[in-house]
């Protein structure tokens, strides 16, 4: 039995589900950021896995776009961590339920 593309997609789906659950269910704000990073990683893996099922000319895009996705993730982590530092300085807490200034 050889390596099949569906295995890669299943791994990406599993990682995305774990990342989404981490981002939505955990209360610590650092875990929310880590869950988002995990979900972004899974999407990159899915891109590359689908690119390998395409013929030569079409398989380029799926291997270039993850580079842009990684750069956007770097920008997102930069701004997100600055926000966390800002909120932590005001609230002295990493519990995202304490951040309900607007009672949302």
């Amino acid at each position, binding site marked *: 039995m050889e390596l099949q593309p569906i295995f890669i997609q299943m791994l990406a789906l599993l990682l995305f589900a*774990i990342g989404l659950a981490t981002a939505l269910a955990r209360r610590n704000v650092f875990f929310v950021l880590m869950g988002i990073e995990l979900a972004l990683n899974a999407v990159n893996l899915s891109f590359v896995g689908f690119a390998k099922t395409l013929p030569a000319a079409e398989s380029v895009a799926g291997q270039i776009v993850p580079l842009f996705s990684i750069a956007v993730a770097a920008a997102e982590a930069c701004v997100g961590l600055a926000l966390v530092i800002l909120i932590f300085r005001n609230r002295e807490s990493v519990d995202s339920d304490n951040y309900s200034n607007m009672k949302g």
Partner: protein
Amino acid sequence: MLALIYFIILAVIAVGAACCVFLSKHPLYGGLSLVLTMLSLAGIYGLLGSPFIGVVQIMVYAGAIMMLLVFVISVLNAAKDNRTPMFDGTSIFVLIGVLGLAGLIGFALVLTPLGFDATTLRGSVEMTSSNLFDTAQTGPGYFVLFEVLGLLLLSSMGAAVLMAKKRLGSDASVEAASEEAIAEEKEEK
């Protein structure tokens, strides 16, 4: 066959480390588990024939982003409020929703016919650079996106510095401004 064995080993490490992220109590352990997930994903990229993305994954994700995250966790000393519960009452509904979503997408994926194409290009440095910096009129135009990403990274860095700076627009700068105003008034007199 050998590729499948390598893939299974790396996938088990990736999923196990991801479960560690989901279940660990201290954010530092979660961050280190996430680094392990990213390293094994880089191995899977190399296995699939995209070594450049794998190297970028190690350098940017595991090297830069996670280093920044672990550094901020250490600096903020977030371990001191460990009375916060890991999950709350709504988490069970979130888990049910995520499992339902994953089941639906998995069902759709299983029904899709997929197969590796033999003529697919290897994601080497030559292929990536020749496509990324193809400035021809008829080319894919990725270089414009590349410039836009440079601007995005620069603006996010500026935003992060402005946000995390201590006492922005408060006492220090207001006092400096008022002192300048007083000095100007004295000069006018």
